[in-house]
Each structure stands twice: as structure tokens, then as C-alpha cells.
């Protein structure tokens, strides 16, 4: 068993265990911290697959951005030390069964399917290749989706400001 395998299983365990804890703990702040560790585990898996750029993006956007946003909104909306209310056991049971059945179905389908791998020469996921293809307008370029996502981010930014703005009392 090589070191790479050991690291893979450790990252997988980190991701899954903190994912489970993030959706089951009754303290909302701890849920946010477990979510953070789960996202770090996924970033580690990206590093393990040697997709360094996407791992860095994952850490910057998710760990540095979204989790901090979630923690701030917890501070703004929750009383410190409050536990989340206990859920009905029936609902938990049904949800667990639905999730488990879906998971079992997916895994059965997955192991019955055999994937065919391409034999072409691999393209290294380096920043140069990513940048060239991201802004390329040729056959495999992603310039149009890039622009569309830019517009979407602008719209989301303006939308957030408009929604979260405290409305002034109407002027008489």
C-alpha cells in the first residue's frame, strides 16, 4: 500500500465523516465548521488528482468565501448557544431511507456499467492550457460561457444589494 493510497483514504474519510456531521449536528456553528472541513477534504482530493488549479479555486471560493459568508449569516440570525430543534424521528427515518435507497440504486447502476477510456494523448491541466481554452473562441473555447457567467455574477451582486438593502420609510 503506497503513501498515495493512504492519503486518498484519509481524505475520503475526512470528507465523508465531516459531511455526515455537518448535516446531523444540532449546533449550527459546528455544522458550519464541519462543512468547512468537508470542503477542505474535497480540495485535498482535487490536489490528490493533480488538478491543482481547481483545488486552489475550491479553497479560495468555498473555504475562504462561502463558508465565511455562512458563518457571518449565522452570527446575524442565531442566538449564541441555541440548539436546533429536534426533528421528528419519522421524518429522519424517511429521509435516511430515501437517501440510502438513492445511494444504493446509484451504486448498483455504477458497478454494472463499464466505462470506456479514451486513448488520446492527455492534456495537462496546467494554468496555461486552462487560460488558453477559457478565453479561446475556437472549437473548444469557453469564451461565451465565461462572458455569460460574468453577467450572471454581476446580476447576482446587484440582486444581493437590492434584496439586503434596508428599505427606507416612505417619504411623505
Amino acid at each position: 500500500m503506497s503513501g498515495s493510497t493512504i492519503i486518498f483514504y484519509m481524505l475520503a474519510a475526512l470528507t465523508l465523516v465531516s459531511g455526515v456531521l455537518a448535516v446531523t449536528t444540532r449546533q449550527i456553528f459546528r455544522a458550519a465548521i464541519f462543512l468547512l472541513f468537508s470542503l477542505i477534504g474535497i480540495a485535498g482530493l482535487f490536489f490528490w488528482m493533480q488538478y491543482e488549479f481547481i483545488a486552489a479555486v475550491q479553497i479560495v471560493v468555498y473555504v475562504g468565501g462561502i463558508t465565511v459568508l455562512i458563518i457571518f449569516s449565522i452570527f446575524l440570525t442565531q442566538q449564541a448557544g441555541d440548539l436546533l430543534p429536534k426533528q421528528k424521528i419519522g421524518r429522519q427515518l424517511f429521509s435516511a431511507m430515501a437517501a440510502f435507497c438513492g445511494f444504493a440504486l446509484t451504486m448498483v447502476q455504477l458497478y454494472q456499467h463499464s466505462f470506456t477510456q479514451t486513448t488520446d494523448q492527455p492534456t495537462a491541466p496546467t494554468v496555461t492550457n486552462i487560460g488558453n481554452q477559457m478565453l479561446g473562441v475556437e472549437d473548444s473555447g469557453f469564451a461565451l460561457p465565461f462572458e455569460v457567467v460574468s453577467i450572471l455574477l454581476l446580476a447576482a451582486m446587484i440582486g444581493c444589494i437590492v434584496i439586503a438593502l434596508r428599505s427606507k420609510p416612505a417619504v411623505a
Partner: protein
Amino acid sequence: MMEPGLYHLLFISAALFFIGVFGFFTRRNLITMLMSIELVLNSVNLNFIAFNKYLWPNRLDGLFFSIFVIAIAAAEAAVAIAIIINLYRSHQSIDVENAEEMKF
């Protein structure tokens, strides 16, 4: 233990997806529901990257899809939190059971 490959990554991704689905079903607090959605989106990213690495390493399409998924997830989280904070101002609560004026 086996050498990890595509199936291991797909197992992790599927497990994380259904952990997120479980959280979405059981949680009744809007922020924790948002966290479950983040888990689901992350499992999708992991899937894209795994397929890109193990099946089609000649193209970078999976990587680009996950970059766009991350961008859209960031926008979605920001808008959702703006809505949650606005809802908290008007209802003093972010429980989904308390926000049902438009239910009927």
C-alpha cells in the same frame, strides 16, 4: 485495500450527494439547508473532475464545467444569504415552517 481509481471517487461523490440530500430533507433551518446544497454541488464538482481525469484526460471540459459550477454556486449562496437575512428582518426567524405566507 485496493488502489483508488475512478470507482472510489464516484463512490465518495455519490455518498456526499446523498448526505446532502439527507440534510436537505431533515433540516428545517434555512442556513443549514443552504449548507446541504453546497455539499451536493461539491459532490457534482468531484464527479466532473474524476471523469475528466480518468476517462477523458485529452480534454479539459470537466474542469471547465466545475469552474462554472463553482461560480454559479458562489452567486447562489450570496443571493440565498441576502434573502435569508431579509427574511430574518421581517419574521425574526429563519425556520422554513414560519415562512409560509405564500403557501396557499
